[in-house]
């Protein structure tokens, strides 16, 4: 017994180091295995509060670009409104299927990372505003990411610039779909993989979100085809997509509550039970 205590006292530093190291390794591996299991995130009172304070100051530096983006969006919306035959009737947003007028939450990005392989954003609204995990996040130019974790006042978003994110997307012209991933290299480009070789792919074609995803409504802009090539051992295209969004400079974003989601997941659950 004496010897055990002696051993512990002698190696106390090493034991402490190994203990803490195993905790930190556990946290690291957990964060890499699946994004839901992340224990520590910046969606909490402390870090969210600090980021909001920092954002309050730095926001002023981006007022000009933010204003320009808003003016552009206004112009686009006005052009849609004036081109309808009867300008007094409000046009139904048919292309956003399953999304009602109360299902869009406006929020602001208070922290943005884009320099690692797994990037996250922090938003200044959370569960109190009705945000839940797995909701889609877009802005006026295109998609931004998917909600990861929420706290009462803040939420984190898995950016599309995250090697773990996978979003269903399709070529607007031909409806051939694939999944949108990121190879971790360039912040301006993401990759659309698993597009069948039959698909007619041309440089400059638009890529939009596909109908298979219940997170995003169909036909939300993503980007244009920049480059495409075959993968060596499969017969699928890999397409480099140039994003409409500048992911390094994000201001206000919209969070979409998809009403279809519950219905679709319930239906699929029912199917599995029947089998």
């Amino acid at each position, binding site marked *: 017994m004496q010897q055990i205590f002696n051993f512990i006292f002698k190696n*106390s*530093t090493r034991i*402490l*180091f190994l203990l*803490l*190291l195993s*905790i*930190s*390794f*556990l*946290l*690291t*591996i*957990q*964060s*890499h295995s699946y994004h839901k299991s*992340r224990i*520590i*995130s*910046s969606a*909490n009172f*402390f*870090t969210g509060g*600090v*980021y909001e304070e*920092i954002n309050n100051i*730095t926001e002023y530096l981006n007022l000009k670009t933010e204003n320009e983006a808003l003016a552009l969006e206004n112009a686009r919306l006005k052009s849609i409104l004036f081109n309808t035959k009867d300008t007094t009737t409000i046009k139904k947003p048919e292309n956003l299927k399953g999304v009602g007028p109360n299902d869009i939450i406006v929020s602001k990005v208070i922290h943005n*990372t*884009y*320099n*690692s*392989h*797994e990037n*996250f954003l*922090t938003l200044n609204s959370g569960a109190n505003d009705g945000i839940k995990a797995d909701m889609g996040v877009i802005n006026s130019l295109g998609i931004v990411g998917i909600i990861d974790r929420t706290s009462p006042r803040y939420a*984190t978003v898995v950016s599309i610039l995250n090697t773990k994110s996978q979003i269903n997307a399709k070529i607007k012209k031909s409806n051939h779909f694939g999944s949108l991933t990121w190879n*971790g*290299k*360039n*912040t301006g480009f993401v990759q659309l993989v698993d597009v069948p070789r039959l698909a007619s792919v041309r440089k400059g074609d638009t890529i939009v979100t596909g109908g298979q995803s219940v997170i995003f409504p169909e036909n939300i802009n993503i980007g244009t085809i920049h480059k495409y090539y075959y993968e060596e051992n499969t017969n699928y295209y890999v397409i480099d997509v140039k994003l409409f969004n500048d992911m*390094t400079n994000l201001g206000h974003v919209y969070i979409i509550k998809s009403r279809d989601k519950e219905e679709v997941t319930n239906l699929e659950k029912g199917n599995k039970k029947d089998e």
Partner: protein
Amino acid sequence: MNSTLLLNILRFISLLALQIVVFNNMTFLGFIMPLPYILFIILYPVNSNRSALIISSFALGIIMDLFSNSGGIHTTACLILAYYRPYLFKFAFGVSYEYQTIKLNESLTPERFSFIFLAVVLHHLTLFILEAFQVSFILDILIRSLLSTVFTIISCIIIIYLIKSNKR
């Protein structure tokens, strides 16, 4: 004794604040980010309590991880640097480093520079390996750690000189 404790607490808070407010927003070429917060571990007194250093670097790393949504990569890198710091001292200053009065925040000699260099390389390599967590990114890891090391060392030396001029 009490003043060194106070100094270290002050250093801990101010370096973290500096990292989060200033250096986290400072990215070159989209992926290079200087991380001068590890200066806390580098500048920690040589002959002070090692367990205290390990616990405080765990806290340092976990706060960084909270802010950057990165799981436990900063924590692991900080812990490894804190634990292997005596070996780096031995390598840079010779075997009898414990009997010398090493003050890193004085003029920059080759020994001091080599110590800072080794510490930063060790920290950044573990950090970027854990961040990518894939063998296929090995070239990317090396480029990232090399370039970030350069920027971290530059920012560390600037901060060391700024602290020094304040004292006089």
